[in-house]
């Protein structure tokens, strides 16, 4: 039966039209029509501009009639469009009065803020036609994907091991061996690798559409092109980056990304998106008209009293996140990624900005963050904040959470790095970090699950560089080494940069193993930077945002060269995933509140039960009692970790175990591979149950359990017959 509200009522240059539906915003296929709907509070007129694919000139421009303008929404249905061969945009008319915040310019063709497919940068690095008057073009998307039974995995957050990665950097290296390097499809080909490593969540650096040519320039150092590689600069909040899809040139990036998510899910791997809602690619007063500033500048951006752009993002402008309409757009975007892409969670870049009011002041109960915490569709979606911004707001431990938000724990990174390089004044801090940062997250019932622990992330040194460089080496970025973090808490182990000195390289590998051991045996959600597991170097560049080349790309040859690191990462990750006593959701009691004979968690030192901080505050040990992790009738083992960041060897007296239990050694970072770590579950018994010797700058991990009785092989009695 035909619906009467899908009957054309108007005609314009041969195209049939009728009043559109204001909701949802964007372009939606309704029967044989496309419904176009766009909000602008201050625009006086709007025109829909339609192009055939890739054509320079539009084939029609349809003004929204007065009767198509309801409240502040322009909406119109256009019938019988071949929407696979259609690009659309808008012209907005209204005041140009920057002091009042208005920058309307009807000569510009503007992208739909709700565009779910954006074309114009379809093949990575292909020079666009800069004379084209409409650079980033909205298209209508096919949103029917065959998901089968797939849904977000809802893995308990405390069980995650996150792998932070970049779509291009992961497989662009010549040795990656994938058919489509640098794409979603390339990641799909590497799923067996991710499974072998043992991570169960990938956090993709921004995959919303952005422009790699934004601020692209030849390097003043050697002339190679510098691109906006990382993509922390959104063109659109609803569309995937076309050039990250091998099928982007056919505009099939939506299907390719959905297929990647589906395949990752089928292998037990969650997907978290790094989302950038703090600013857009339109920059400041001098930036281009892409969409928002031409559609409703005063709504979308935080502006000073004189109409200039606040710059809390350090990128020219600041999205006006707590304007109710922008807030709705952000919520709509997140819901869309969860419902249509089955995404498992989000990490919010410079999330402190999301808590600033329209004048830039931090709010105590920011409505946007509260909306997200209570949103029905995002009800089980992981929400992780980078709880600071470029305007100086630092909210690690105090980010408004409503018990829902986790945070990148920057204090974990700083404390562990300092401990790793034998800084003598950090032990108290380190102890807080190991037990899930109760100083930060014990309040508001946030718990250990609020702490995303990391030692390295895309910002800053890779793990190999953390142990190979005292200072950053960002000259290749063309800013005279001024960019990037100066306080890295790194130590080069005795030589700046790569070297052939065996003892130094041995120490570096050991330090990396120490670091990942700290990460995996601490309470909280561990996050590994992609490539660290194979000793990836950026040659000291701690801000490789623009290096679309071997500096930032993973060199897969390292997998063989640093096989011991990969082996160590793989096993320590498996160890963590096998031992629930390492993955508590809430903070520990530090006493024996169930009368089990041992406290749930206890600190030790070179003497058992005595957390003496001698040797320059560089030794510590702790023990976890696995009986306290018995939620389902299966207790875990005892785990004892001795960390000696002093440069001399020390004996650590071991706590006595219950009868029949023995200490077994799982890892000893001092030992040469393969004796550095063993297969989890197959740990050999420690010879001296009273004490272990832990070498200088080394960590030992022991497991307390009943020794496995070796099965006696049945002897066949020989007969003399």
């Amino acid at each position, binding site marked *: 039966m035909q619906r009467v509200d899908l009957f054309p009522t108007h005609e314009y240059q041969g195209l049939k039209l009728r009043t559109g539906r204001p909701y949802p915003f964007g372009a939606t296929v309704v029967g044989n029509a496309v419904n176009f709907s766009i909000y602008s509070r201050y625009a006086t007129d709007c025109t829909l501009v339609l192009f055939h694919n890739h054509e320079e000139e539009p084939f029609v421009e349809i003004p929204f009639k007065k009767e198509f303008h309801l409240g502040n929404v322009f909406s119109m249905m256009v019938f019988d469009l071949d929407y*696979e061969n259609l690009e659309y945009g808008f012209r907005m008319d209204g005041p140009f009065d920057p002091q009042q915040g208005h920058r309307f310019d009807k000569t510009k063709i503007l992208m739909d803020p709700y565009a779910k497919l954006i074309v114009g940068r379809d093949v990575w690095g292909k020079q666009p036609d800069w004379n084209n008057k409409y650079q980033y073009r909205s298209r209508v998307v096919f949103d029917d994907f065959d998901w089968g039974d797939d849904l977000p995995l809802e893995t308990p957050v405390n069980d995650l091991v996150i792998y932070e990665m970049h779509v291009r950097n992961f497989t662009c290296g010549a040795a990656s061996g994938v058919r489509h390097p640098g794409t979603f499809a390339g990641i799909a080909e590497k799923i067996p690798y991710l499974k072998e490593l043992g991570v169960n969540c990938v956090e993709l650096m921004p995959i919303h559409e952005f422009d790699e040519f934004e601020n692209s320039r030849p390097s003043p150092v050697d002339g190679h092109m510098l691109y906006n590689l990382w993509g922390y600069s959104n063109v659109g909040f609803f569309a995937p980056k076309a050039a990250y899809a091998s099928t982007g040139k056919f505009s099939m990036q939506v299907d390719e990304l959905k297929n990647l998510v589906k395949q990752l899910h089928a292998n037990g791997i969650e997907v978290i998106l790094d989302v950038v809602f703090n600013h857009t690619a339109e920059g400041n007063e001098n930036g281009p008209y892409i969409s928002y500033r031409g559609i409703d500048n005063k709504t979308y951006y935080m502006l000073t009293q004189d109409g200039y752009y606040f710059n809390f993002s350090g990128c020219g402008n600041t999205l006006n996140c707590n304007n109710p309409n922008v807030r709705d757009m952000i919520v709509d975007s997140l819901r869309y990624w969860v419902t249509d892409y089955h995404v498992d969670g989000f990490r919010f870049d410079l999330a402190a900005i999301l808590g600033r009011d329209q004048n830039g002041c931090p709010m105590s109960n920011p409505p946007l963050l509260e909306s997200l915490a209570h949103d029905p569709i995002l009800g089980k979606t992981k929400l992780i904040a980078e709880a600071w911004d470029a305007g100086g707001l630092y909210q690690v431990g105090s980010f408004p959470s409503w018990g829902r938000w986790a945070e990148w724990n920057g204090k974990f990174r700083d404390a562990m790095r300092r401990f790793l390089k034998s800084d003598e004044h950090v032990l108290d801090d380190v102890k807080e970090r190991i037990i899930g940062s109760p100083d930060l997250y014990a309040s508001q019932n946030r718990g250990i699950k609020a702490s995303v622990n990391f030692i390295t992330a895309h910002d800053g040194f890779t793990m190999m560089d953390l142990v190979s460089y005292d200072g950053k080496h960002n000259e290749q970025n063309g800013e005279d080494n001024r960019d990037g973090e100066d306080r890295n808490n790194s130590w080069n182990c005795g030589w700046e940069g790569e070297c052939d000195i065996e003892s130094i390289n041995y120490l570096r590998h050991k330090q990396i193993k120490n670091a990942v051991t700290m990460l995996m045996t601490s309470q909280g959600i561990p996050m590994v930077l992609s490539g660290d597991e194979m000793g990836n170097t950026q040659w000291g560049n701690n801000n490789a945002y623009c290096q679309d080349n071997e500096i930032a790309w993973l060199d897969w040859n390292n997998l063989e060269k640093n096989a011991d690191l990969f082996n160590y990462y793989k096993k320590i990750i498996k160890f963590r995933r096998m031992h629930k006593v390492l993955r508590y959701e809430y903070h520990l009691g530090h006493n024996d509140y169930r009368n089990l004979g041992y406290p749930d968690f206890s600190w030790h030192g070179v003497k058992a039960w005595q957390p003496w901080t001698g040797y320059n505050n560089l030794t510590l040990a702790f023990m976890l009692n696995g009986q306290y992790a018995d939620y389902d009738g299966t207790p875990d083992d005892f785990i004892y970790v001795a960390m000696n960041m002093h440069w001399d060897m020390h004996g650590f007296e071991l706590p006595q175990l219950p009868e029949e239990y023995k200490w077994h050694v799982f890892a000893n970072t001092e030992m040469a591979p393969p004796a550095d770590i063993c297969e989890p579950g197959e740990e050999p018994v420690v010879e001296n149950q009273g004490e272990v010797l832990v070498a200088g700058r080394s960590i030992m991990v022991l497991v307390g359990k009943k020794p496995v009785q070796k099965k006696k092989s049945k002897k066949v009695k020989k007969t003399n017959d």
Partner: protein
Amino acid sequence: MAVVYKMGASLDSTSSPKEQENILKLFEGGDNVIIDMTDTNYVSSAGLRVLLYSYKVAVSKNLNVYLVGVCDDVKDIMDMTGFIEHFEIFDTMEECKKKIGD
């Protein structure tokens, strides 16, 4: 029993409605369908959906749909976007008929 359907050179939004209609008609006769794509060198998003929809209809009628002569480019696109997982693809008609015993 399987009937062969010869697909045109381009399966896009322009050709899709007609091709879809033709394929669905064949299922009405209760036959499995072999789609001969030997001459098809372009399949768009809309085209992929014609294939998938045909597959879904076939399954709902306990029938099969087979693809023959899919060129490498199209096969690659189907692979990257996940559409390939639903289909049995054969290089030649002979191979297909031999396999399905037709």
